[in-house]
């Protein structure tokens, strides 16, 4: 409850900082504020990819279900935050370059990551056996995570615009950190809830099996 409360308050604060307390808002409109949200969402997306990778590797080496739960939770959080990154990135591109799409490496990598997460979700639904599902899901996530940095570099070489925004001054650092921190706290709270849900779901399955055995 404490984590949820802190996450909620910090997200409200971040939105306030990003959209209202912008020091050079007059000169750049809402671009900078949107940029803070975009960078924060990209940061959380990267974090979910790293956590998925580590959870996948740990699951394959130890075989404990809680790491599969963590992989699934981080993938689902990524599935939510990556569209935020794409939408805010597209809005930044529209404000900065008057076009909805630029070959910005973060934007391209985010789009690729979202497809990976969608496919991952479909892959998980293709298996009934939970161990098989967890194993293949971990393998796919490791391959996709290894490909992630390559996608970033490839998009960097394809880049047609140097940056969505000019050089950010030191004054931009504090709001950027507040936004990134708030998004991180929110994702942590969501992961925690997802893990609890997975645990409860497992307990229900176990109790159902016990009841069935008792009736038999």
């Amino acid at each position, binding site marked *: 409850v404490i984590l949820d409360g802190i996450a909620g308050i910090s997200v409200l604060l971040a939105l306030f900082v990003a959209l209202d307390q912008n020091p050079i808002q007059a000169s750049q409109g809402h671009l900078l504020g949107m940029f803070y949200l975009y960078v924060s969402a990209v940061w959380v997306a990267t974090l979910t990819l790293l956590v998925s990778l580590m959870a996948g590797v740990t699951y*394959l080496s130890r*075989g404990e279900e809680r790491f599969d739960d963590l992989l699934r939770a981080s993938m689902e959080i990524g599935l939510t935050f990556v569209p935020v990154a794409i939408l805010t990135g597209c809005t930044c591109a529209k404000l900065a370059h008057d076009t909805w799409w630029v070959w910005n490496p973060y934007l391209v990598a985010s789009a*690729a990551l979202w*497809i*990976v997460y969608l*496919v991952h979700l*479909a*892959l998980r639904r*293709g*298996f009934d056996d939970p*161990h*098989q599902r967890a*194993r*293949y899901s*971990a*393998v*796919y996530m*490791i*391959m*996709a995570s*290894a*490909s992630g940095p*390559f*996608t970033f*570099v*490839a*998009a960097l*070489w*394809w880049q047609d615009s140097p940056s969505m925004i000019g050089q950010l001054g030191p004054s931009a650092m504090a709001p950027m950190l507040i936004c990134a921190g708030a998004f991180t706290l929110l994702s942590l709270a969501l992961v925690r809830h997802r893990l609890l849900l997975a645990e409860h779901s497992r307990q229900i399955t176990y109790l159902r099996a016990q009841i069935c055995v008792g009736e038999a």
Partner: protein
Amino acid sequence: LGSQLQALVAIAEKDFVAAWRAKRIWAMGSLPAVLLVFIFYAVFRLRSGDVSDVVTAALWIAFALSGMLILSYSFIQERNRGSLDGLLLSPAHRAVIYLAKWLPNWFFISLVQTTILLLTSAVFGINLLRVDLLLIMVISAAGYSGVGTLLSAVASHSRSRTMMLGAMLLPVALPLFMVAAKASSDLLHGDSLSPSRHWLQFVSAFSFLSVVLSTVLFNCVVEER
């Protein structure tokens, strides 16, 4: 090591012979790609001027498509015949089985790709048979088949097999296609492989990493726990 090498040669030979006899692999791999090249030609033939970028696009889409079809054949056939269990029961190491499956895939994808290259050269009237372009294609085929062989094994266990392979493979292989297409476009525009971009190193690094990682992970895919 000697016996593992013998196993590798035996399994790879089995796949080569099976694919050679079953002519449908050629039709399956080549025909959609051939059609695609003709569609590109039909759409862009009236455009005057430089068609290098169109040729590059046709080439790499055809590559992705034909490769995917060939890769989908790799493990699904083994599962349908029930011969995968036999392979896994053999004394060959799992990494050896993976490499023996990967080698024929690499070979057939490169072969179909060269056929498409020849066809595209003839249709568009551009000489595409260049050593540097062939090198990029063969190395890309190694990486594509490296990831694809592993994911084909994963997809063969899934309910929606062929569809799942395409969906899984393309986002993972995306950087390979982005860089290989850009490098091919530069080559066709008359530039040499730009040293500042390290196209070839990128494609080689991706291919090497994908084969090594897939070799390591293959055991987790075929393991029954």
